[in-house]
């Protein structure tokens, strides 16, 4: 069971690495989006400091979302997904494997990079810690929920935007509590409650998302 999971994760990771610079590209996208905002809004340091957690979180969210499209779509297009559906491994296992791989390639690097970007916005030390922690708890939720959206929009045209449409509303609570926690910390309040709410989201989506994604995949072929 675990061996099978590992081999699926390994396959997806290898695939991502083969598409050269996939991880790097995510990071650069993340950095660029974070950089765009000061440009659009105008560079007031005070304003920037207030906006920082929100911007970093929104950028993380968009980066996660963009990469979702490839979670199932390429496997769907070339017929690999139908092989997975009638594979000797339970579908649930495959889905979990793909989600884990997705997080390792998108969520985790973002989380590691975020403190550096936060620094650029002059965020205080503890706020940086909370930012990292909130991303660490929050980005898996993004991958989990995203997987459901990606499965639902399989083979539907206008995929990209429809996916965004389905997934973003579900991302909003994560965004609010993620960014909220950082803001709270930056203002000298504790981030505990925000983080525990994020944790709760994580727990719930760990249960619901893989199941929902499996159902959605089967429906896509029926």
């Amino acid at each position, binding site marked *: 069971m675990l061996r099978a999971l590992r081999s699926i994760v390994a396959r997806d990771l290898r695939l991502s690495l083969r598409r*050269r*610079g996939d991880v*790097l590209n995510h990071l*650069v996208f993340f950095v*660029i989006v974070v*950089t765009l905002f*000061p*440009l659009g809004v*105008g*560079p007031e340091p005070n304003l920037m400091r207030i906006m920082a957690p929100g911007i970093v979180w929104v950028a993380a969210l968009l980066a996660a979302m963009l990469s979702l499209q490839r979670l199932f779509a390429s496997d769907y297009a070339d017929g690999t997904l139908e092989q997975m559906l009638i594979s000797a491994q339970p579908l649930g296992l495959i889905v979990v494997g793909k989600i884990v791989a997705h997080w390792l390639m998108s969520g985790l690097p973002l989380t590691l990079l975020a403190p550096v970007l936060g620094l650029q916005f002059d965020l205080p030390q503890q706020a940086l810690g909370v930012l990292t922690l909130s991303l660490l708890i929050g980005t898996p939720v993004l991958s989990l929920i995203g997987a459901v959206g990606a499965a639902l929009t399989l083979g539907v045209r206008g995929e990209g935007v429809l996916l965004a449409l389905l997934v973003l509303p579900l991302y909003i609570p994560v965004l609010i509590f993620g960014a909220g926690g950082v803001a709270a910390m930056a203002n000298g309040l504790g981030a505990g409650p925000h983080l525990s709410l994020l944790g709760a989201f994580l727990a719930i989506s760990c249960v619901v998302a893989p199941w929902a994604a499996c159902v959605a995949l089967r429906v896509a072929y029926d």
Partner: protein
Amino acid sequence: MKATTLEAHADGRGNALLRFAAPQAFFPLAGKMIPWFAALAVVFAVGGLYVSFFVAPTDFQQGESYRVIFIHVPAAWMSMFLYVVMAAWAAFGLILNTRLSGMMASAIAPTGALFTFIALWTGALWGKPTWGTWWVWDARLTSELILLFLYLGFIALTTAIDDPRRAERAGAVLAIVGVINVPIIYFSVKWWNTLHQGASVSLTKAPSMAATMLAGMFLMALAAWMYSFAAALWRVRSIILERERDALWVRERGGGA
């Protein structure tokens, strides 16, 4: 080898310049030039550093912090210059379809990105004590940052495409489109009168800088030029070997060495 490409005909016509546009002919030439450029780079750098730290006096306004100039300005110059050279090679390759051009463009990009990064980094470090901030979204700074992104985009694009011929032609299009950014960087301080200082050195007026300072800056700039040439040539040699791995002359090289 390839009858259609320009360089193959060149030999017959005896055009020496075009002959060296063939990777096979350029490879040993580059190999001969690298030590010279490298040596000159070291000489200029040692001289430049000596002048920078032990000859050039303290600045009347900025005190010792101005010594960042000896890195910042050469790096900033190189960042723009290398981009233009890269785009020129790229355009040349796109139009004439010579094999060496694309390789040269790919060889220059990382060094260009490096100098752009150094210009940004030293600028930021210099900005803190002088202006009072690491970074502002001033036109000069922003356009230099875009330059870095353009370099990174070029590198990312060319490495993402694995057919080298296609990669360098696609990169060429990007490089040419991005050239628009270079004059924007250069003239930004004139067009938008913001934080970054105007030119201290220009073709039209006498430099507004003490002679020893200027000497240090020029020495360092020369070192940067020589270094860039050496690095780009070194890289292009690797690229030639990678691309022509199966060509007879490369395999013979492996066997004979």
